[in-house]
């Protein structure tokens, strides 16, 4: 649908252009299928841009594979090409699998998923072997670690290698938090503890604060009980973390996601007033990745906005 129609319907802007403008030069180059341009654009990514997010977004493009092969033909040890190939394989694996839980996924889809993830793991292992300090490759290896069920200890090791090079790397944090969620073999305590630790280790105003909200969203998703975010304790924890995010007027990579996550959490907690500062920052943007709990997230966002400003 045309953006103008979305504006008329008061739906938020969920396009990558609005969410990750810093990645657009790179994504445009990958979409154009130009290996050399992609490599140049990747090298020119802002120091602040999240390389894990950049590579994962590029993996969603159907041209990613040919770009990766073009890079690797030029140099078999190319870090960007190898990581992009791994990213594309991960995306293809999940496309083949579908979003349902394993018990509701046909066996042949699971087999294809595993094969593709295994290929991705091999490619990414080669990438980290060649470039042990490539944070993006290590971030993607947290995903393959989860998909291949290597356990939380190994996921933490890989996450540690990613953040050793790029401290407070949000994409790596988000992937590890997924691993620590009960659905992937972690526990609620472990997940909340990690979220708080990562959020408060990062400087004030850093998007990593959103991990606290994400942990509560995962918690709700796991228990199916929305009351877990409505307790005073939960609202207190969320408010404190939200204040940390709002306390500095810096917009680090993934800020749309972080504010979207807090908006979702406060929305669920029926705290329209607390959601308002995040909606102010978001204006009409929304990261759907933070709103996966909702059916029709864009409409729910519209409703939340109405309720928040009425409150």
């Amino acid at each position, binding site marked *: 649908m045309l953006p103008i129609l979305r504006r008329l319907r008061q739906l938020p802007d969920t396009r990558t252009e609005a969410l990750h403008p810093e990645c657009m030069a790179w994504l445009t180059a990958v979409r154009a299928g130009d290996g050399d341009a992609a490599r140049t654009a990747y090298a020119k990514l802002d120091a602040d841009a999240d390389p894990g997010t950049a590579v994962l977004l590029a993996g*969603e493009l159907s041209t990613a594979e040919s770009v990766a092969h073009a890079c*690797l*033909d030029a140099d*078999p*040890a190319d870090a960007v090409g190898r990581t992009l190939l791994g990213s594309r394989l991960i*995306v293809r694996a*999940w*496309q083949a699998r579908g*979003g349902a839980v394993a018990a509701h996924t046909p066996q042949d889809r699971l087999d294809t998923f595993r*094969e593709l993830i295994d*290929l991705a*793991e*091999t490619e990414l*292992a*080669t990438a*980290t*072997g*060649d470039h*042990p300090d490539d944070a993006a490759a290590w971030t993607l290896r947290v995903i393959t*670690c989860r998909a*291949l069920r*290597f*356990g939380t*200890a*190994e996921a933490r*090791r890989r996450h540690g290698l990613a953040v050793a090079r790029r401290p407070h790397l949000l994409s790596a944090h988000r992937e590890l938090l997924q691993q620590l969620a009960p659905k992937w073999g972690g526990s609620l305590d472990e997940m909340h503890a990690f979220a708080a630790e990562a959020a408060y280790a990062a400087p004030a105003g850093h998007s990593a604060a959103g991990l606290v909200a994400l942990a509560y969203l995962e918690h709700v998703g796991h228990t199916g009980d929305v009351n877990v975010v409505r307790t005073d304790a939960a609202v207190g924890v969320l408010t404190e973390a939200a204040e940390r995010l709002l306390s500095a007027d810096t917009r680090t990579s993934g800020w749309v996601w972080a504010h979207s996550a807090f908006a979702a959490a406060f929305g669920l907690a029926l705290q329209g007033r607390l959601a308002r500062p995040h909606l102010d920052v978001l204006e009409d943007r929304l990261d*759907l990745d933070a709103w996966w709990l909702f059916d029709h997230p864009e409409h729910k966002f519209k409703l939340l906005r109405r309720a928040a400003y009425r409150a």
Partner: protein
Amino acid sequence: MRQTVVDGVPVVVTPAPGPVQATLYFRVGQADETAATRGVTHLVEHLALHGLGPFDHRSNGGTGQTVTQFETTGTPDEVATFLTGVCRSLSALRLGRLDVERRVLRTEEAAREADLETVSARWRHGARNYGLISYAEFGVGTLTADAVDAWATSHFTRDNAVLAITGELPAGLTLPLPSGVRRPMPAASAILPVTPAYFPGPGGWLGVTSMVDRGTPASLYARLLHRALMRSLRTEAGLSYTTAARYRVGSAGRAEITAHADADAGHVEEAVDLFVRTLQSGDWIDEAELARAVQDARTAMAEPSFAAGATRRWAQDILCGLPPRTREDIAAGLKAVSLADVAEVARACWANALLMLPGVRAERYGCERAPMSSRAVPPGRRFAARDGGRAYLVVGKDGVGLADEGRYATVRYTDCVLLVRHTDGGRLVLGADGLGVPLEPEVFAVDAATLASVDAAVNPAVIVDRERDANDIPRPDRARRRDRRIRAAKVALHRFWHSRVAFPAATLTVMAFVLVALCAGSTGSGTGVLRVLVALGGLLAFLGGLLVWRHHRYAHW
């Protein structure tokens, strides 16, 4: 222990009562060969011993990685006769017997069981030097008499030999060997990008090999590990019958620690978990265990066989350019060792470990899988698989490659260490990293002229001709080919149904509705039921379109 020289050969003598034990060592072994000459040292060893039999436990020969030995036990006269016989035999090999020994070696090879070291070596070193023990003795069948003789002349010399004697040095011993040079130890190639690493091994067995600094702490760690594995896997968990760990002196001041265990098929994962955790953390090493291991080592030193072993070790150290250690050195080492020293060895052992695991992945322990494929195939002409699959061969001007489902094997001509040319036309091209490309005209649509161009591109010294049993020639998988065709036909039918039948039919139906609606509207003759039906159909078409569009737009993974 004293050292003397006989006919230019250094001799290490440890006086001892009883029969004389003598071992003559040469600084040459499998690691000095190439993939194409693999087995030449073994062949020389066999030819040298011919005519000196009968071979029983008293006299024998052995080819190791870096050292070849001839050993005997007996009276001083018997020992002198054997050693002089071996030396004469080495100086003038009985090459007339070459074909018989070729056959004997092939039989010996067929009967040999692969052990952990043999299986692991290629994963760590590739198809060169210390990795060569993983490969068949390709040279045995094809090496010419001249080549075998040249190998003997250049390596089995008095300057490349040391003799170890426990007992009395036989009077009048002569060692008539030609002069030559002392051969340096082969450098170890390394192909593992990261350690700890693992590779898939045969079912029922798990093992580890690791390189650590040579010395008392390392040998004690092997003893401790041996007991720890026995305790955890066998005594406590009851998952294994055989568990073992051992320490072996390697090259250049390094020692190899190996350990293995068997595992019941139903409990492989638990066994791997215990095995790896024992290696990973040294927290089971305590003072009491260490004291016990030290005591065991002291007991072993007091045994009569220790002197012979120490003499042999001393001789090999001299030969390999390593600093030999006296009995006093070993005793002092045992006295000085601390818990921290052994813990350090445990850490180093894990950091360098290469695990062999039966169908279990070890990434969960922070291990990487040893590389099983190349990064890409070289540019060149592609040859499709005859079974209709996606695999293809590439023959280019720099090398050959095989691609199959995203995995590649590539051998550059400059890195090619072996080209096995089968009489039926098939070929195996092996690279220094141990990856091979099978050029099989039965499986891939590759022509004879292209195969000949590969022969011409590699170093002629790496080509080995071999006969192959007709049953061993790989054939395209006919069943797989049939399955592929059936699947392709199904997909084509599916596409045909959607694009030529279902979609046009749906479009025509919608158009018909629209037409009827227009007619009904314009003539004003439509009944109420018809109008409702038309409106409903239009609505359904619109909603269906919307659904397809939304699905396309938000197909997030």
